[in-house]
């Protein structure tokens, strides 16, 4: 069990920089998820921690040991691969015990650890089968079992659920969380799926173009994104971004979205944006904070209306698409209160949950 420390980590392939200076402090027993679009450097970072990629620059510490030049076998970590990487010529039991046999662990100890891990994962009956005879979910379990028996300092997961069908993915996600609660270990988990990141992580690391955009708990990422990228990446459906200007409106400030719509800024927020009056900005609001007209529960809620262009019923809610000054905007409304397509509909926006983004820096103001 140990903490992992990345200091100014870089990776360069020929001319391209895959990872451009990452600093991250992963706590003992923490579940950290690296998330980002493909090509953002998350897998490269994980592979550098594993020792499968050479480090171009920077330092990695596991515990208090610098492991830059330690071969993978001596790093005391276990990794679960996207395609599971089960050894096809070995039974499940042999797969799980491979690492222990290499380390010359006594036979009865191996047996004990394998059956313990098999118990946790519920794969006791599969021990004599070969990987070919297993379903996707079972292979996934075996791959995790192989990691658990090693009892390593840290677990690395490289998109472990992307090869499973949607239903199984949700099941295994819960399973992984349960296992982490039982087998307390430091986990670094790579995924491109923000839902996986939100549900599993103690802390999320959002990466883009080889750098870290933001680190924080899932709730922090959702409520207080620091950049436009994080705001758009976390949360589903994605946050709406509407070009706007902050204008003087009466005694206070307002956010002007179009000629027809100017939303009054609550006084508590006005101070923050006073310096940006009349600059082109981007107004960010999540669909769930833009609902059908409701009884206001706080002073920050304001109403406006738009023409409905498309409806997407989801069952519990209906996604309402409207157009504001050429930008498509999604709102989330109760099914019974939705107006038909082409009709005007009144919405309530919770200004408490809106964000203003500076388009020059793409940072949230």
């Amino acid at each position: 069990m140990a903490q992992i420390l990345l200091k100014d980590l870089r990776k360069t392939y020929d001319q391209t920089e895959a990872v451009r200076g990452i600093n991250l402090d992963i706590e003992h027993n923490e579940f950290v998820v690296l998330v980002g679009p493909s090509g953002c450097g998350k897998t490269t970072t994980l592979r550098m921690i594993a020792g499968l990629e050479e480090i171009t620059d920077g330092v990695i510490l596991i515990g208090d040991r610098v492991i830059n030049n330690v071969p993978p076998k001596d790093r005391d970590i276990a990794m679960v691969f996207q395609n599971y990487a089960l050894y096809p010529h070995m039974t499940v039991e042999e797969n799980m015990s491979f690492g222990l046999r290499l380390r010359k662990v006594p036979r009865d100890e191996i047996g004990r650890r394998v059956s313990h891990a098999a118990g946790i994962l519920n794969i006791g009956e599969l021990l004599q089968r070969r990987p070919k005879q297993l379903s996707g979910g079972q292979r996934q379990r075996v791959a995790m079992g192989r990691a658990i028996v090693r009892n390593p300092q840290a677990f690395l997961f490289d998109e472990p659920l992307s090869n499973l069908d949607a239903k199984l993915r949700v099941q295994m996600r819960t399973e992984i969380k349960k296992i982490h609660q039982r087998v307390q270990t430091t986990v670094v988990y790579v995924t491109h799926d923000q839902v996986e990141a939100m549900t599993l992580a103690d802390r999320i690391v959002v990466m883009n173009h080889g750098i870290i955009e933001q680190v924080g708990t899932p709730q922090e990422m959702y409520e207080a994104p620091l950049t436009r990228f994080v705001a758009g990446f976390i949360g589903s459906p994605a946050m709406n971004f509407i070009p706007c200007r902050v204008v003087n409106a009466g005694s206070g400030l307002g956010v002007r979205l179009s000629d027809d719509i100017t939303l009054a800024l609550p006084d508590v927020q006005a101070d923050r944006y006073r310096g940006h009056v009349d600059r082109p900005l981007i107004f960010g609001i999540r669909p769930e904070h833009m609902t059908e007209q409701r009884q206001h529960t706080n002073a920050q809620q304001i109403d406006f209306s738009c023409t409905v262009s498309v409806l997407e019923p989801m069952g519990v809610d209906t996604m309402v698409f409207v157009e504001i000054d050429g930008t498509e905007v999604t709102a989330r409304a109760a099914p019974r209160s939705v107006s038909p397509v082409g009709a005007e509909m009144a919405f309530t926006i919770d200004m408490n949950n809106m964000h203003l983004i500076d388009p020059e820096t793409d940072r949230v103001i």
Partner: protein
Amino acid sequence: MNAMVGETYVRRLVIFYIPLFMFVFVMLFPFAWMLITSIKPDAELYNPRISPFIVREPTLEHWESLFGTTLFIRWAINTLWVAIASTAVSLFAGVLAGYALSRLVFRGSTLFGIMIFVTYLVPPTLLFIPLTGVVTWMGLQDTTWSLIFTYPTFLVPFCTWLLMGYFQTIPKELEECARIDGATRLQAMSRIVIPLAVPGILSAGIFAFTLSWNEFLYALVFIHSPENKTIPVGVTSELIKGDVFFWGALMAGALFGSVPVAVVYSFFVEHYVSGMTGAVKG
């Protein structure tokens, strides 16, 4: 074989059985011819008025002369020894080179791979002259060692390229996982990659064995003493005297010489097919 819906017997006959029969006929005819010729008395063999496909009085005289008056058994042993030894040497080198070229990225690795392939393209008819010099310089002329050392010049490139392709079908993650699990590169290779590459290694081995079993030119050039010859050279040099062909014994020798290869093939045919079609499935 289950007939598919709408597939008539005639259709199957035309697209499947007739072509198959023709293929089998063409493949097996030389063997049948060798067998018939080897058990025919000379009187029948040279009589143009009787059907060449019928043997009236089968005889073993050609077989007796092959085993009795020539060193055929010795040649067979020589051929087997040379084929096994050169195949072993070539497989060993080919596995290591093929692995390195498919997995390790080093400066000039692509160029190195291409150069190995180019050496395979140089025909033995050009290569045997300089190789004669090398063999003489090493003092190996007229020994089976000269063949064991020269056959790898075409077997190693062949094995390397075949195995390189096969190693590439084995997912890299398996090895990476093994290395994280605690294996060194060499252990990952010997315990994960090589066991999975067995079909490919077998195919390469069978091919190499066949190529060296049938090799003619180097064996003809480097070996002079009858007791050191291999079957292809021995049979043709000792059973053709001037313009006299001892057809019966020649055919007996040819038939006997092709049997071991056929046996080797049939033993490994399943592995061989999967070796050619590649792929390890998770």
